[in-house]
Protein backbone atom coordinates (compact mmCIF):
# COMPACT_ATOMS: atom_id res chain seq x y z
CA UNK A 1 0.00 0.00 0.00
CA UNK A 2 1.30 3.48 -0.86
CA UNK A 3 2.25 5.91 1.86
CA UNK A 4 -0.35 8.67 1.91
CA UNK A 5 1.75 11.65 2.92
CA UNK A 6 5.51 11.17 2.80
CA UNK A 7 5.87 14.51 4.56
CA UNK A 8 3.59 17.36 5.52
CA UNK A 9 2.36 19.15 2.46
CA UNK A 10 0.44 22.31 1.68
CA UNK A 11 -2.53 21.95 -0.61
CA UNK A 12 -5.19 24.16 -2.14
CA UNK A 13 -8.49 22.35 -2.59
CA UNK A 14 -12.23 22.19 -1.89
CA UNK A 15 -13.58 21.09 1.50
CA UNK A 16 -15.07 17.93 0.02
CA UNK A 17 -11.66 16.95 -1.31
CA UNK A 18 -10.13 17.65 2.10
CA UNK A 19 -12.57 15.20 3.69
CA UNK A 20 -11.56 12.42 1.30
CA UNK A 21 -7.85 12.94 2.06
CA UNK A 22 -8.49 13.27 5.80
CA UNK A 23 -10.54 10.07 5.93
CA UNK A 24 -7.70 8.33 4.15
CA UNK A 25 -5.18 9.69 6.65
CA UNK A 26 -7.48 8.72 9.53
CA UNK A 27 -7.32 5.10 8.39
CA UNK A 28 -10.89 4.79 7.12
CA UNK A 29 -11.42 1.46 5.37
CA UNK A 30 -14.65 2.05 3.49
CA UNK A 31 -17.24 4.68 2.63
CA UNK A 32 -20.90 3.93 2.05
CA UNK A 33 -22.77 6.66 0.26
CA UNK A 34 -25.69 7.94 -1.68
CA UNK A 35 -25.38 11.13 -3.73
CA UNK A 36 -26.79 14.45 -2.59
CA UNK A 37 -25.51 17.96 -3.20
CA UNK A 38 -23.39 19.57 -1.80
CA UNK A 39 -21.45 16.54 -0.51
CA UNK A 40 -21.18 14.56 -3.77
CA UNK A 41 -17.51 15.28 -4.34
CA UNK A 42 -16.60 13.52 -1.08
CA UNK A 43 -17.71 10.35 -2.85
CA UNK A 44 -16.11 11.39 -6.13
CA UNK A 45 -12.70 12.05 -4.56
CA UNK A 46 -12.92 9.01 -2.28
CA UNK A 47 -13.67 6.70 -5.19
CA UNK A 48 -10.62 8.06 -6.99
CA UNK A 49 -8.35 7.66 -3.95
CA UNK A 50 -9.71 4.46 -2.40
CA UNK A 51 -8.47 1.93 -5.00
CA UNK A 52 -4.95 3.38 -4.87
CA UNK A 53 -4.75 2.79 -1.13
CA UNK A 54 -6.67 -0.48 -0.84
CA UNK A 55 -9.82 1.12 0.60
CA UNK A 56 -13.43 0.42 -0.34
CA UNK A 57 -16.56 2.17 -1.49
CA UNK A 58 -20.16 1.10 -1.91
CA UNK A 59 -22.97 3.21 -3.30
CA UNK A 60 -26.29 1.96 -1.97
CA UNK A 61 -29.83 2.52 -3.24
CA UNK A 62 -30.71 5.31 -0.80
CA UNK A 63 -29.66 7.07 2.39
CA UNK A 64 -31.29 4.55 4.73
CA UNK A 65 -29.25 1.78 3.15
CA UNK A 66 -26.08 3.86 3.14
CA UNK A 67 -26.50 4.56 6.85
CA UNK A 68 -27.26 0.96 7.79
CA UNK A 69 -24.52 -0.40 5.54
CA UNK A 70 -22.09 1.89 7.36
CA UNK A 71 -23.14 0.28 10.64
CA UNK A 72 -22.72 -3.14 9.08
CA UNK A 73 -19.23 -2.25 7.93
CA UNK A 74 -18.30 -1.15 11.44
CA UNK A 75 -19.76 -4.33 12.98
CA UNK A 76 -17.66 -6.32 10.53
CA UNK A 77 -14.60 -4.61 11.97
CA UNK A 78 -14.01 -1.87 9.40
CA UNK A 79 -13.54 1.83 9.95
CA UNK A 80 -16.55 2.90 7.92
CA UNK A 81 -17.92 6.35 7.23
CA UNK A 82 -20.78 8.03 5.46
CA UNK A 83 -21.61 11.51 4.15
CA UNK A 84 -24.87 13.27 3.45
CA UNK A 85 -26.80 16.56 3.56
CA UNK A 86 -30.28 18.03 3.99
CA UNK A 87 -33.09 15.54 3.33
CA UNK A 88 -30.43 12.81 3.29
CA UNK A 89 -29.50 13.76 6.83
CA UNK A 90 -33.17 13.38 7.80
CA UNK A 91 -33.28 9.85 6.37
CA UNK A 92 -29.99 8.94 8.03
CA UNK A 93 -31.44 9.60 11.49
CA UNK A 94 -32.81 6.08 11.71
CA UNK A 95 -29.46 4.30 11.29
CA UNK A 96 -27.81 6.97 13.45
CA UNK A 97 -30.30 6.23 16.25
CA UNK A 98 -29.39 2.58 15.94
CA UNK A 99 -25.72 3.50 16.25
CA UNK A 100 -26.56 5.36 19.46
CA UNK A 101 -28.49 2.42 20.88
CA UNK A 102 -25.91 -0.21 19.92
CA UNK A 103 -22.86 2.00 20.52
CA UNK A 104 -21.60 1.64 16.96
CA UNK A 105 -18.81 4.16 16.37
CA UNK A 106 -19.31 5.39 12.79
CA UNK A 107 -18.32 8.81 11.41
CA UNK A 108 -20.71 10.99 9.44
CA UNK A 109 -19.89 14.04 7.34
CA UNK A 110 -22.75 16.50 6.99
CA UNK A 111 -22.57 19.35 4.47
CA UNK A 112 -25.58 21.45 5.40
CA UNK A 113 -27.80 22.78 2.61
CA UNK A 114 -30.92 24.95 2.76
CA UNK A 115 -34.04 23.51 4.37
CA UNK A 116 -36.71 22.45 5.06
CA UNK A 117 -37.04 19.59 2.57
CA UNK A 118 -35.29 20.01 -0.80
CA UNK A 119 -35.03 23.81 -0.37
CA UNK A 120 -31.60 24.76 -1.81
CA UNK A 121 -28.57 22.71 -2.72
CA UNK A 122 -26.37 25.57 -1.58
CA UNK A 123 -25.82 26.34 2.07
CA UNK A 124 -27.27 26.74 5.58
CA UNK A 125 -26.73 25.97 9.25
CA UNK A 126 -30.20 24.50 9.53
CA UNK A 127 -29.08 20.96 10.33
CA UNK A 128 -27.57 21.96 13.65
CA UNK A 129 -30.47 20.67 15.75
CA UNK A 130 -31.00 17.62 13.54
CA UNK A 131 -27.35 16.58 13.68
CA UNK A 132 -27.19 17.04 17.47
CA UNK A 133 -30.58 15.67 18.46
CA UNK A 134 -32.20 13.89 15.48
CA UNK A 135 -33.65 10.45 15.97
CA UNK A 136 -35.78 8.94 18.71
CA UNK A 137 -33.34 9.24 21.55
CA UNK A 138 -31.22 11.51 23.69
CA UNK A 139 -28.66 12.81 21.21
CA UNK A 140 -25.84 10.57 22.43
CA UNK A 141 -23.49 11.88 19.76
CA UNK A 142 -20.34 13.84 19.27
CA UNK A 143 -20.65 16.76 16.82
CA UNK A 144 -17.74 18.91 15.62
CA UNK A 145 -18.55 22.12 13.76
CA UNK A 146 -15.62 23.19 11.55
CA UNK A 147 -14.81 26.63 10.13
CA UNK A 148 -11.73 26.23 7.92
CA UNK A 149 -10.28 23.60 5.63
CA UNK A 150 -7.48 22.99 8.13
CA UNK A 151 -10.11 22.26 10.76
CA UNK A 152 -11.95 19.90 8.42
CA UNK A 153 -8.73 17.90 8.16
CA UNK A 154 -7.81 18.08 11.86
CA UNK A 155 -11.30 17.28 13.16
CA UNK A 156 -11.80 14.44 10.72
CA UNK A 157 -8.77 12.76 12.27
CA UNK A 158 -10.16 13.51 15.73
CA UNK A 159 -13.66 12.31 14.79
CA UNK A 160 -12.41 8.88 13.72
CA UNK A 161 -10.29 8.48 16.81
CA UNK A 162 -12.95 9.66 19.24
CA UNK A 163 -15.72 7.65 17.58
CA UNK A 164 -13.78 4.42 18.07
CA UNK A 165 -12.57 5.40 21.51
CA UNK A 166 -15.94 6.39 23.01
CA UNK A 167 -18.22 4.43 20.70
CA UNK A 168 -20.82 7.09 19.99
CA UNK A 169 -21.77 8.20 16.45
CA UNK A 170 -19.52 11.13 15.58
CA UNK A 171 -20.09 13.97 13.13
CA UNK A 172 -18.08 16.53 11.24
CA UNK A 173 -20.67 19.21 10.56
CA UNK A 174 -19.80 21.40 7.58
CA UNK A 175 -21.90 23.24 5.03
CA UNK A 176 -22.19 23.97 1.32
CA UNK A 177 -19.66 26.81 1.45
CA UNK A 178 -17.04 24.71 3.18
CA UNK A 179 -17.82 21.88 0.76
CA UNK A 180 -17.34 23.95 -2.39
CA UNK A 181 -14.87 26.68 -1.58
CA UNK A 182 -11.15 26.32 -2.16
CA UNK A 183 -8.51 27.39 0.33
CA UNK A 184 -5.13 26.26 1.58
CA UNK A 185 -4.33 23.77 4.33
CA UNK A 186 -1.59 21.42 5.49
CA UNK A 187 -2.08 17.70 4.93
CA UNK A 188 -0.19 15.36 7.23
CA UNK A 189 0.00 11.85 8.58
CA UNK A 190 -1.40 11.99 12.16
CA UNK A 191 1.15 9.44 13.33
CA UNK A 192 4.04 11.78 12.49
CA UNK A 193 2.47 14.27 14.89
CA UNK A 194 2.24 11.75 17.68
CA UNK A 195 -1.41 10.78 17.23
CA UNK A 196 -1.95 7.04 17.28
CA UNK A 197 -4.90 5.80 15.27
CA UNK A 198 -7.53 3.86 17.21
CA UNK A 199 -7.78 0.24 16.21
CA UNK A 200 -10.99 -1.51 15.26
CA UNK A 201 -12.20 -5.09 15.53
CA UNK A 202 -15.30 -7.03 14.49
CA UNK A 203 -18.33 -6.78 16.77
CA UNK A 204 -19.78 -10.00 15.36
CA UNK A 205 -18.58 -13.28 13.94
CA UNK A 206 -15.60 -13.82 16.23
CA UNK A 207 -15.06 -17.57 16.64
CA UNK A 208 -15.80 -19.06 20.02
CA UNK A 209 -17.38 -15.86 21.32
CA UNK A 210 -21.11 -15.20 21.65
CA UNK A 211 -21.82 -11.55 21.03
CA UNK A 212 -25.21 -10.02 21.61
CA UNK A 213 -25.64 -6.40 20.58
CA UNK A 214 -29.11 -5.37 21.61
CA UNK A 215 -31.31 -2.94 19.75
CA UNK A 216 -34.57 -4.23 21.28
CA UNK A 217 -35.60 -4.52 24.92
CA UNK A 218 -38.47 -6.43 26.48
CA UNK A 219 -39.14 -4.40 29.57
CA UNK A 220 -38.93 -0.72 30.54
CA UNK A 221 -36.35 -1.23 33.27
CA UNK A 222 -33.97 -3.08 30.98
CA UNK A 223 -33.92 -0.16 28.56
CA UNK A 224 -33.67 2.39 31.36
CA UNK A 225 -30.73 0.59 32.89
CA UNK A 226 -28.89 0.39 29.57
CA UNK A 227 -29.58 4.03 28.74
CA UNK A 228 -28.49 5.20 32.18
CA UNK A 229 -25.16 3.52 31.60
CA UNK A 230 -24.85 5.08 28.13
CA UNK A 231 -25.82 8.52 29.45
CA UNK A 232 -23.22 8.30 32.21
CA UNK A 233 -20.55 7.28 29.68
CA UNK A 234 -21.62 10.07 27.35
CA UNK A 235 -21.32 12.58 30.22
CA UNK A 236 -17.85 11.27 30.96
CA UNK A 237 -16.89 11.62 27.29
CA UNK A 238 -18.40 15.13 27.24
CA UNK A 239 -15.98 16.31 29.92
CA UNK A 240 -13.04 14.95 27.94
CA UNK A 241 -13.92 16.10 24.43
CA UNK A 242 -15.83 19.37 24.81
CA UNK A 243 -14.15 22.15 22.80
CA UNK A 244 -14.64 25.86 22.27
CA UNK A 245 -12.69 29.01 21.54
CA UNK A 246 -13.05 32.31 23.32
CA UNK A 247 -11.32 35.58 22.43
CA UNK A 248 -11.59 39.36 22.66
CA UNK A 249 -12.48 41.46 25.70
CA UNK A 250 -12.92 39.54 28.94
CA UNK A 251 -15.75 41.77 30.16
CA UNK A 252 -17.40 42.69 26.89
CA UNK A 253 -20.30 45.02 26.23
CA UNK A 254 -21.26 42.58 23.52
CA UNK A 255 -20.44 38.88 23.20
CA UNK A 256 -20.66 37.47 19.68
CA UNK A 257 -21.56 33.78 19.50
CA UNK A 258 -21.37 31.74 16.27
CA UNK A 259 -20.34 28.29 15.08
CA UNK A 260 -18.92 26.84 11.89
CA UNK A 261 -18.19 28.95 8.83
CA UNK A 262 -20.21 31.86 10.27
CA UNK A 263 -17.65 32.19 13.07
CA UNK A 264 -15.17 33.38 10.42
CA UNK A 265 -17.41 36.40 9.82
CA UNK A 266 -18.01 37.02 13.54
CA UNK A 267 -14.28 36.70 14.35
CA UNK A 268 -13.46 39.28 11.69
CA UNK A 269 -16.29 41.51 12.96
CA UNK A 270 -15.05 41.16 16.54
CA UNK A 271 -11.55 42.22 15.50
CA UNK A 272 -12.78 45.23 13.52
CA UNK A 273 -15.18 46.35 16.25
CA UNK A 274 -12.41 46.19 18.84
CA UNK A 275 -10.17 48.23 16.55
CA UNK A 276 -12.93 50.84 16.54
CA UNK A 277 -12.76 50.92 20.34
CA UNK A 278 -15.74 48.75 21.26
CA UNK A 279 -15.53 46.13 24.01
CA UNK A 280 -16.42 42.94 22.19
CA UNK A 281 -15.92 39.29 23.04
CA UNK A 282 -16.19 36.22 20.86
CA UNK A 283 -17.33 32.72 21.75
CA UNK A 284 -17.43 29.79 19.37
CA UNK A 285 -18.55 26.29 20.32
CA UNK A 286 -16.42 23.78 18.39
CA UNK A 287 -18.30 20.78 19.74
CA UNK A 288 -22.02 21.48 19.41
CA UNK A 289 -22.80 18.20 21.14
CA UNK A 290 -21.60 18.19 23.89
CA UNK A 291 -22.17 21.94 24.09
CA UNK A 292 -19.51 23.92 26.02
CA UNK A 293 -21.99 25.02 28.68
CA UNK A 294 -19.63 25.94 31.52
CA UNK A 295 -17.25 27.89 29.30
CA UNK A 296 -20.11 29.88 27.79
CA UNK A 297 -21.61 30.58 31.22
CA UNK A 298 -18.29 31.96 32.39
CA UNK A 299 -17.87 34.56 29.62
CA UNK A 300 -21.61 35.28 29.34
CA UNK A 301 -21.72 36.05 33.06
CA UNK A 302 -19.31 38.92 32.40
CA UNK A 303 -21.01 40.15 29.22
CA UNK A 304 -23.57 42.95 28.99
CA UNK A 305 -25.33 41.62 25.91
CA UNK A 306 -25.09 38.58 23.65
CA UNK A 307 -25.53 38.43 19.87
CA UNK A 308 -25.98 34.96 18.36
CA UNK A 309 -25.22 34.89 14.63
CA UNK A 310 -26.30 31.92 12.51
CA UNK A 311 -27.56 30.87 9.08
CA UNK A 312 -30.59 29.30 10.75
CA UNK A 313 -33.55 30.69 12.69
CA UNK A 314 -32.54 30.17 16.28
CA UNK A 315 -31.02 26.66 16.32
CA UNK A 316 -27.75 27.78 17.89
CA UNK A 317 -29.63 30.45 19.85
CA UNK A 318 -31.74 27.82 21.61
CA UNK A 319 -28.57 25.91 22.60
CA UNK A 320 -27.14 29.17 23.95
CA UNK A 321 -30.31 30.10 25.89
CA UNK A 322 -30.52 26.59 27.30
CA UNK A 323 -26.90 26.75 28.47
CA UNK A 324 -27.34 30.16 30.07
CA UNK A 325 -30.70 29.72 31.78
CA UNK A 326 -30.41 31.07 35.30
CA UNK A 327 -26.71 31.94 34.93
CA UNK A 328 -26.70 35.17 32.97
CA UNK A 329 -29.01 38.17 32.78
CA UNK A 330 -27.47 39.38 29.52
CA UNK A 331 -30.15 39.72 26.84
CA UNK A 332 -29.63 37.27 23.95
CA UNK A 333 -30.16 38.86 20.52
CA UNK A 334 -30.06 37.06 17.20
CA UNK A 335 -28.79 37.81 13.72
CA UNK A 336 -30.70 34.93 12.20
CA UNK A 337 -30.54 34.32 8.45
CA UNK A 338 -31.80 30.84 7.66
CA UNK A 339 -30.14 29.42 4.56
CA UNK A 340 -28.22 32.62 3.81
CA UNK A 341 -24.51 33.39 4.09
CA UNK A 342 -23.41 36.05 6.56
CA UNK A 343 -20.68 38.64 6.01
CA UNK A 344 -18.52 40.37 8.60
CA UNK A 345 -20.04 43.70 7.48
CA UNK A 346 -23.55 42.53 8.41
CA UNK A 347 -22.38 41.44 11.86
CA UNK A 348 -20.68 44.81 12.41
CA UNK A 349 -23.82 46.74 11.45
CA UNK A 350 -25.99 44.67 13.79
CA UNK A 351 -23.43 44.90 16.61
CA UNK A 352 -23.13 48.68 16.30
CA UNK A 353 -26.88 49.01 16.76
CA UNK A 354 -26.64 47.09 20.03
CA UNK A 355 -23.39 48.52 21.39
CA UNK A 356 -23.28 51.65 23.54
CA UNK A 357 -22.08 54.65 21.53
CA UNK A 358 -18.33 55.07 21.78
CA UNK A 359 -17.17 57.74 24.22
CA UNK A 360 -20.26 57.55 26.41
CA UNK A 361 -19.80 54.34 28.34
CA UNK A 362 -16.39 54.53 29.97
CA UNK A 363 -12.88 55.91 29.71
CA UNK A 364 -11.60 52.90 27.79
CA UNK A 365 -13.79 53.72 24.87
CA UNK A 366 -12.60 57.21 24.04
Amino acid sequence: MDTIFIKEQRAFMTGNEVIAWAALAAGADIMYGYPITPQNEIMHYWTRLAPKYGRGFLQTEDELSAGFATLGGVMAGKKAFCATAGPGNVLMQEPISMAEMMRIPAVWFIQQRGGPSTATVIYSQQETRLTCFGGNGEGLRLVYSTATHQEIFDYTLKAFNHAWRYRFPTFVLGDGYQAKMREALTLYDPQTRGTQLQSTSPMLGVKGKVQHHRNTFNIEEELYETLSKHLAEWQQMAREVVEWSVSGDEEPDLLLVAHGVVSRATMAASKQLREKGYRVGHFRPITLRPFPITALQEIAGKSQQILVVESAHGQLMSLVRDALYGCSCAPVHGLLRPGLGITAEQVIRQAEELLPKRGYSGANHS
Partner: protein
Amino acid sequence: MRRQYWRIVVAGEGGQGVQLIGEILAESAYRAGKEALYIPNFGVEQRGGVSIAMVQIANGPIAAPKFEKADVLVPLSRRAMERTKRYIHSDTIYIYDNSDIEPPHVWDEVIGIYGWDTVAPEAFSLAVGTEPQEPGRPPVNEGVRPRWIVGIPASSIAREELKPRVFNMIILGAIVTASRVLPLSVVEETLLAKLGDKLQQYLELRELNLRALARGATFVQERWQGEGRP
Protein backbone atom coordinates in the same frame (compact mmCIF):
# COMPACT_ATOMS: atom_id res chain seq x y z
CA MET B 1 -0.38 52.26 -0.60
CA ARG B 2 -0.78 48.93 -2.34
CA ARG B 3 -3.86 47.04 -1.28
CA GLN B 4 -3.18 44.15 1.11
CA TYR B 5 -6.54 42.49 0.71
CA TRP B 6 -8.35 41.95 -2.58
CA ARG B 7 -11.96 41.02 -3.27
CA ILE B 8 -12.50 40.04 -6.89
CA VAL B 9 -15.79 39.26 -8.65
CA VAL B 10 -15.80 37.86 -12.19
CA ALA B 11 -19.24 37.34 -13.73
CA GLY B 12 -20.29 36.31 -17.19
CA GLU B 13 -22.33 34.21 -19.53
CA GLY B 14 -22.04 30.47 -19.89
CA GLY B 15 -19.07 29.46 -21.95
CA GLN B 16 -17.03 32.58 -21.22
CA GLY B 17 -14.82 30.63 -18.84
CA VAL B 18 -15.48 32.74 -15.77
CA GLN B 19 -14.83 29.96 -13.22
CA LEU B 20 -11.45 29.14 -14.71
CA ILE B 21 -10.41 32.77 -14.23
CA GLY B 22 -11.43 32.53 -10.56
CA GLU B 23 -9.69 29.22 -10.04
CA ILE B 24 -6.43 30.34 -11.63
CA LEU B 25 -6.42 33.63 -9.71
CA ALA B 26 -6.95 31.88 -6.37
CA GLU B 27 -4.46 29.12 -7.06
CA SER B 28 -1.85 31.63 -8.22
CA ALA B 29 -2.26 33.54 -4.98
CA TYR B 30 -1.76 30.31 -3.09
CA ARG B 31 1.39 29.61 -5.11
CA ALA B 32 2.62 33.12 -4.36
CA GLY B 33 2.38 32.32 -0.64
CA LYS B 34 -0.75 34.36 0.03
CA GLU B 35 -4.03 33.32 1.61
CA ALA B 36 -6.76 32.79 -0.96
CA LEU B 37 -10.39 31.75 -0.95
CA TYR B 38 -12.37 31.00 -4.09
CA ILE B 39 -16.04 30.12 -4.22
CA PRO B 40 -18.13 29.66 -7.36
CA ASN B 41 -21.72 30.56 -8.11
CA PHE B 42 -23.91 31.58 -5.25
CA GLY B 43 -26.45 34.17 -4.36
CA VAL B 44 -29.06 36.01 -6.36
CA GLU B 45 -26.47 37.22 -8.85
CA GLN B 46 -26.27 33.86 -10.54
CA ARG B 47 -29.98 33.43 -11.17
CA GLY B 48 -30.48 32.34 -14.75
CA GLY B 49 -27.46 31.97 -16.95
CA VAL B 50 -24.94 34.17 -15.16
CA SER B 51 -21.89 32.42 -13.75
CA ILE B 52 -20.00 34.09 -10.91
CA ALA B 53 -16.57 33.50 -9.41
CA MET B 54 -15.69 35.17 -6.10
CA VAL B 55 -12.06 35.32 -5.05
CA GLN B 56 -10.39 36.81 -1.98
CA ILE B 57 -6.63 37.24 -1.74
CA ALA B 58 -4.92 38.43 1.43
CA ASN B 59 -1.70 38.34 3.41
CA GLY B 60 -3.52 37.08 6.51
CA PRO B 61 -6.51 34.85 7.32
CA ILE B 62 -9.64 35.41 5.24
CA ALA B 63 -13.00 35.80 6.98
CA ALA B 64 -16.32 34.77 5.42
CA PRO B 65 -16.51 33.35 1.87
CA LYS B 66 -19.10 36.03 1.11
CA PHE B 67 -18.37 39.74 0.88
CA GLU B 68 -20.28 42.89 -0.04
CA LYS B 69 -17.96 45.06 -2.15
CA ALA B 70 -15.42 44.17 -4.82
CA ASP B 71 -12.04 45.81 -5.39
CA VAL B 72 -12.01 44.32 -8.88
CA LEU B 73 -15.31 43.76 -10.67
CA VAL B 74 -15.34 42.07 -14.06
CA PRO B 75 -18.83 41.75 -15.56
CA LEU B 76 -18.53 40.15 -18.97
CA SER B 77 -22.06 40.76 -20.21
CA ARG B 78 -24.76 43.35 -19.63
CA ARG B 79 -26.78 40.91 -17.57
CA ALA B 80 -23.73 40.06 -15.46
CA MET B 81 -23.23 43.80 -14.90
CA GLU B 82 -26.85 44.23 -13.73
CA ARG B 83 -26.47 41.37 -11.28
CA THR B 84 -23.15 42.51 -9.83
CA LYS B 85 -23.22 46.31 -9.93
CA ARG B 86 -24.00 46.43 -6.21
CA TYR B 87 -20.40 45.29 -5.57
CA ILE B 88 -19.01 48.60 -6.88
CA HIS B 89 -17.38 50.91 -4.33
CA SER B 90 -15.54 54.17 -4.84
CA ASP B 91 -12.17 52.42 -5.36
CA THR B 92 -13.32 49.57 -7.58
CA ILE B 93 -11.40 48.64 -10.72
CA TYR B 94 -14.08 47.84 -13.30
CA ILE B 95 -12.95 45.69 -16.21
CA TYR B 96 -15.24 44.86 -19.10
CA ASP B 97 -15.19 43.62 -22.66
CA ASN B 98 -15.85 46.51 -25.03
CA SER B 99 -15.68 44.55 -28.29
CA ASP B 100 -18.20 45.15 -31.02
CA ILE B 101 -18.84 41.44 -31.06
CA GLU B 102 -21.57 40.53 -28.64
CA PRO B 103 -21.20 37.76 -26.08
CA PRO B 104 -23.73 34.92 -26.23
CA HIS B 105 -26.77 34.95 -24.04
CA VAL B 106 -28.67 31.95 -22.74
CA TRP B 107 -32.39 32.50 -22.26
CA ASP B 108 -33.35 32.69 -18.63
CA GLU B 109 -36.69 30.95 -19.12
CA VAL B 110 -35.24 27.71 -20.36
CA ILE B 111 -32.90 27.48 -17.43
CA GLY B 112 -35.24 28.29 -14.57
CA ILE B 113 -33.25 26.37 -12.02
CA TYR B 114 -29.97 27.33 -10.49
CA GLY B 115 -27.61 25.92 -7.95
CA TRP B 116 -24.20 24.47 -7.30
CA ASP B 117 -24.42 21.51 -9.56
CA THR B 118 -26.23 23.30 -12.31
CA VAL B 119 -23.45 24.24 -14.65
CA ALA B 120 -26.44 25.45 -16.54
CA PRO B 121 -25.06 28.06 -18.90
CA GLU B 122 -22.61 25.86 -20.73
CA ALA B 123 -24.93 22.87 -20.96
CA PHE B 124 -27.97 24.87 -21.91
CA SER B 125 -26.27 27.06 -24.43
CA LEU B 126 -25.38 23.92 -26.38
CA ALA B 127 -28.85 22.47 -26.03
CA VAL B 128 -31.02 25.47 -26.80
CA GLY B 129 -28.76 27.85 -28.62
CA THR B 130 -27.90 31.38 -27.73
CA GLU B 131 -28.70 34.89 -28.76
CA PRO B 132 -26.38 37.86 -28.75
CA GLN B 133 -26.17 40.14 -25.77
CA GLU B 134 -24.68 43.52 -25.02
CA PRO B 135 -21.29 43.78 -23.36
CA GLY B 136 -20.98 44.67 -19.69
CA ARG B 137 -20.49 48.42 -19.94
CA PRO B 138 -20.40 50.18 -16.57
CA PRO B 139 -23.78 51.30 -15.19
CA VAL B 140 -24.68 54.90 -16.07
CA ASN B 141 -26.05 57.38 -13.52
CA GLU B 142 -26.58 54.73 -10.89
CA GLY B 143 -25.11 54.74 -7.39
CA VAL B 144 -21.34 54.78 -7.00
CA ARG B 145 -19.17 55.02 -10.09
CA PRO B 146 -16.10 52.78 -10.12
CA ARG B 147 -12.85 54.74 -9.85
CA TRP B 148 -11.04 52.92 -12.64
CA ILE B 149 -12.80 51.68 -15.75
CA VAL B 150 -10.86 49.42 -18.10
CA GLY B 151 -12.44 48.47 -21.40
CA ILE B 152 -10.69 45.77 -23.40
CA PRO B 153 -11.97 44.35 -26.70
CA ALA B 154 -11.20 40.83 -25.55
CA SER B 155 -13.72 38.96 -27.75
CA SER B 156 -12.51 40.81 -30.84
CA ILE B 157 -8.86 40.14 -30.01
CA ALA B 158 -9.65 36.50 -29.31
CA ARG B 159 -11.47 36.01 -32.61
CA GLU B 160 -9.24 38.06 -34.83
CA GLU B 161 -5.77 37.35 -33.43
CA LEU B 162 -6.06 34.12 -31.42
CA LYS B 163 -8.99 31.72 -30.89
CA PRO B 164 -12.39 32.54 -29.35
CA ARG B 165 -11.84 30.00 -26.57
CA VAL B 166 -8.93 31.93 -25.00
CA PHE B 167 -11.15 34.96 -24.38
CA ASN B 168 -10.97 34.31 -20.64
CA MET B 169 -7.17 34.25 -20.61
CA ILE B 170 -7.10 37.72 -22.20
CA ILE B 171 -9.42 38.92 -19.44
CA LEU B 172 -7.25 37.20 -16.82
CA GLY B 173 -4.17 39.00 -18.15
CA ALA B 174 -6.07 42.29 -17.97
CA ILE B 175 -7.22 41.66 -14.38
CA VAL B 176 -3.73 40.82 -13.16
CA THR B 177 -2.11 43.80 -14.89
CA ALA B 178 -4.75 46.36 -13.98
CA SER B 179 -4.81 45.38 -10.30
CA ARG B 180 -1.23 44.13 -9.92
CA VAL B 181 -2.67 41.76 -7.37
CA LEU B 182 -0.08 39.10 -8.31
CA PRO B 183 2.96 38.87 -10.59
CA LEU B 184 1.93 37.74 -14.07
CA SER B 185 4.68 35.10 -14.00
CA VAL B 186 2.97 33.24 -11.13
CA VAL B 187 -0.28 33.25 -13.08
CA GLU B 188 1.56 31.79 -16.08
CA GLU B 189 2.99 29.03 -13.89
CA THR B 190 -0.43 28.18 -12.49
CA LEU B 191 -1.98 28.15 -15.93
CA LEU B 192 0.64 25.73 -17.18
CA ALA B 193 0.37 23.52 -14.10
CA LYS B 194 -3.41 23.51 -14.20
CA LEU B 195 -3.76 22.63 -17.84
CA GLY B 196 -0.63 20.52 -17.58
CA ASP B 197 -1.47 17.28 -19.32
CA LYS B 198 -3.62 18.91 -21.95
CA LEU B 199 -1.00 21.52 -22.72
CA GLN B 200 1.84 19.02 -22.91
CA GLN B 201 -0.07 17.15 -25.53
CA TYR B 202 -0.92 20.18 -27.54
CA LEU B 203 1.99 22.60 -27.58
CA GLU B 204 -0.10 24.84 -29.76
CA LEU B 205 -2.71 25.19 -27.01
CA ARG B 206 -0.04 26.07 -24.50
CA GLU B 207 1.29 28.78 -26.78
CA LEU B 208 -2.21 30.08 -27.45
CA ASN B 209 -3.09 30.42 -23.76
CA LEU B 210 0.17 32.13 -22.88
CA ARG B 211 -0.19 34.54 -25.79
CA ALA B 212 -3.74 35.37 -24.76
CA LEU B 213 -2.64 36.06 -21.19
CA ALA B 214 0.22 38.27 -22.39
CA ARG B 215 -2.05 40.06 -24.88
CA GLY B 216 -4.52 41.02 -22.14
CA ALA B 217 -1.63 42.18 -19.97
CA THR B 218 0.06 44.34 -22.63
CA PHE B 219 -3.23 45.88 -23.73
CA VAL B 220 -3.81 47.22 -20.24
CA GLN B 221 -0.15 48.07 -19.71
CA GLU B 222 0.01 50.25 -22.82
CA ARG B 223 -3.13 52.15 -22.02
CA TRP B 224 -2.39 52.68 -18.38
CA GLN B 225 1.07 54.16 -18.58
CA GLY B 226 1.46 57.40 -16.71
CA GLU B 227 -2.02 57.32 -15.23
CA GLY B 228 -2.67 57.21 -11.49
CA ARG B 229 -3.01 53.47 -11.29
CA PRO B 230 -4.24 51.63 -8.23
